[in-house]
């Protein structure tokens, strides 16, 4: 207890590992998400999954996120969101370790403990699946050496098949083709944008929606603002929109406790504000990629 905030770690945060860190290439596609990255960092330092480990790799983890975002293109919204959630949790945990410990009394501490346990649990769960996935991969590779028989029927048997009664007009057939070739809608309740080159959700549009609501209502919680979001992507887009609006000083935000309710207040009164002006950086990221598609960038890759 008492003064020592490092009673279980000495001075662990100062360990030098510059050249070791250099061995990791900063490319998002090296990792299958934030857990993969976190596990890589933990195993690089030969640590177990503990609070120390998390505190220790926090800076590196955040360093990688910075590098990813700087690298730009491949870091899409939905990928970023989960990285950020985990980075935020790690930062909280690290900050908590730097404070005098002892009284786990108030709600903040409890929330932090819960967040930590949840992170441990999810990390361990992911680790288990990662190991199992490796086993499955090995097994699949071994089995790939066995080929089943997959050949057409011998002619004598093929001749026994009932004759096809297929009759159809060319236009009926074309209708079937049109339907079959139509791009299918993603299955309901979830909107995947991983495969798209342009975000399906515009931050500007979301800012516009939020702006309207806040002007009308004055104060709304983030939960209320995202109640109708329908997908994670929209939630993230709305969150980004809030950050932009905060920068524009048209809203204020208030959060009583970590992970607590986030209250958003319209602070610009009747001031003239338009969502148009906040969205440039998102548009800039998007449009060159779309142009490239139009020029046949996709085709090149496919062929």
């Amino acid at each position: 207890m008492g003064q020592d905030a490092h009673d279980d770690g000495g001075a662990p945060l100062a360990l030098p590992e510059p050249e070791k860190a250099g061995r990791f290439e900063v490319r998002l596609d090296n990792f299958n998400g934030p857990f993969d990255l976190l596990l890589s960092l933990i195993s690089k330092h030969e640590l177990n999954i503990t609070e120390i480990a998390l505190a220790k790799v926090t800076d590196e983890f955040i360093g990688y996120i910075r590098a990813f975002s700087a690298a730009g293109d491949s870091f899409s919204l939905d990928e970023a969101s989960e990285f950020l959630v985990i980075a935020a949790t790690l930062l909280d945990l690290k900050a908590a370790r730097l404070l005098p410990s002892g009284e786990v009394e108030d709600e903040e501490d409890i929330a932090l403990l819960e967040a930590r346990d949840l992170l441990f649990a999810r990390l361990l769960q992911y680790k288990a699946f990662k190991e199992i996935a490796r086993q499955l991969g090995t097994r699949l590779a071994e089995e790939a050496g066995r080929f089943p028989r997959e050949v057409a029927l011998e002619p004598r048997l093929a001749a026994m098949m009932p004759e096809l009664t297929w009759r159809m007009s060319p236009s009926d057939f074309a209708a079937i083709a049109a339907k079959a070739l139509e791009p299918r809608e993603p299955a309901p309740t979830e909107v995947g944008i991983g495969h798209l080159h342009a975000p399906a959700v515009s931050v500007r549009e979301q800012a516009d929606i939020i702006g309207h609501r806040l002007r009308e209502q004055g104060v709304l919680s983030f939960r209320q603002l995202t109640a109708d979001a329908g997908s994670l992507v929209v939630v993230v887009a709305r969150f980004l929109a809030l950050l932009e609006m905060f920068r524009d000083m048209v809203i204020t935000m208030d959060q009583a406790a970590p992970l607590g309710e986030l209250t958003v207040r319209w602070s610009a009164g009747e001031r003239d504000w338009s969502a148009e002006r906040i969205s440039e950086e998102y548009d800039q990221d998007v449009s060159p990629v779309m142009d490239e598609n139009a020029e046949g960038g996709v085709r090149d890759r496919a062929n």
Partner: protein
Amino acid sequence: MTERTETPDGTRGEPGEGSVTDVASLPGGVPAAVEAVLLVVEEPVTEMQLATALEVPVQQVQEALAELMAEYDGYTGQGPEPGPTRRRGIELRNVAGGWRFYTRSEFAAVVGRFVLDGQSARLSQAALETLAVIAYRQPVSRSRVSAIRGVNVDSVVRTLVQRGLVADVATDPETGAVLYGTTPLFLERLGIGTVADLPKLSPHLPGLENLQDFDHTTY
């Protein structure tokens, strides 16, 4: 069109409509008949399907399969002096709930040259992890798989569906979300009989039996 009357010895008279002559009396008997059917199957065939086609009791089919499997593996249970014989290049395996002929893996390099289209590309790490989560948590929604892996899995799931390894098997009655599960092809590719034959996940999950509860809290 029917070859039905090619009764080898001629004594076996008119087989009525659709009926099969007594296979047990044909040269090679039930095992040979089973072998013939196995040559034309496109997916593992169940003992019941074989029994129906052959019009013999399932038990006879099971005996024939056991005998054939041993023979192809190089053991003969037949004849006055049972003993090892040549191991064959063909293997009879019980996978995904049925029986099917496969080439032996020793000959993968040779056989691979003749299989033009059958060699599917290997799965990426992301695909394997997603496949693992679906296999162990099925039926499971994409959002839940996303929560476990920490990334969006929509396009990976789509790829797995296209490759026939997973399929949408149900709909969540509450959320309406599509629930995914593994297919018989998945079992076949792994060379196992059922999902229950998958290696146990628990040794990798020390003390975290209740993790399911955490999945939904992510976002």
